[in-house]
């Protein structure tokens, strides 16, 4: 195939790196929610890394998009980066990329304005991550023949497995966390038995 340019290679490379970075960001985000720690690092390292790597990831996505647009071999209008299904080339799979990018932009913008926004609103937008990442993965595999075989496919599958494992760990934590109304009752039971040996003085009275 002649006519493949440096731009095209750059787009594919930065796309792969972006996918890896976004996978790391996603897992770090779950780690923050579950108040997990990275060994040897303070708590604020988890939030800091999550935030900084997400900005790095978006930078790579930006280069990935720009190089794809600049490449002349296929015609990809700039607008199709954010307007889904607006490109002639690989309309559907690139459209997914645009959707994922739109969601990412919403999350980034609300996070940059975090201090000024309503807490509930910020969190609601941030939950779009659960949609954005899988869509990005689908875009990656569907729009690039590279990722459909060989070590790049292994890489994509590896990312998916890591995210899946992290999600299961996150859900396990959620399941173990009691709903608010039951928390007090559980706390009363837990502390009544450690102190009192007298069954008459049970917490329920």
């Amino acid at each position, binding site marked *: 195939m002649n006519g493949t340019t440096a731009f095209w290679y750059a787009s594919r490379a930065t796309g792969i790196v972006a996918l890896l970075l976004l996978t790391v960001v996603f897992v770090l985000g779950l780690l923050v*929610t579950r108040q997990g720690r990275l060994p040897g690092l303070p708590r604020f390292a988890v939030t800091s890394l999550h935030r900084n790597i997400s900005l790095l990831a978006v930078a790579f996505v930006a280069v990935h998009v720009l190089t794809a647009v600049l490449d002349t071999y296929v015609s990809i209008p700039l607008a199709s980066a954010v307007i889904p299904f607006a490109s002639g080339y690989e309309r559907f799979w690139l459209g997914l990329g645009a959707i994922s990018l739109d969601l990412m932009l919403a999350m980034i913008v609300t996070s940059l304005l*975090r*201090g000024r926004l309503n807490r509930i609103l910020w969190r609601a937008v941030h939950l779009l991550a659960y949609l954005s990442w899988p869509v990005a993965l689908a875009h990656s595999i569907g729009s690039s023949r590279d990722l459909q075989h060989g070590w790049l496919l292994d890489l994509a599958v590896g990312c998916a497995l890591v995210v899946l494992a992290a999600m299961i760990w996150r859900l396990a934590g959620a399941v173990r966390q009691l709903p608010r109304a039951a928390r007090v009752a559980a706390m009363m039971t837990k502390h009544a038995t450690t102190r009192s040996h007298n069954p008459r003085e049970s917490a329920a009275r």
Partner: protein
Amino acid sequence: MADTLRVNPIACSGHGVCAELLPELIDLDEWGYPIVDPHPVPPALDPEARRAVAACPALALRLLKRP
């Protein structure tokens, strides 16, 4: 203008990031929840205070203007 740190105790879930970033003004109790110095933030610590507010994963820490 002196600002004061306030925790929204309902939003707070005890991540503890604030206490790490601002140990001069925020301590953690035996359950991991922040004990915040109620006095106005000394001007020298203002940047750290803002950093702590921004870093709270639950958006539970606020800097309020002195009423």
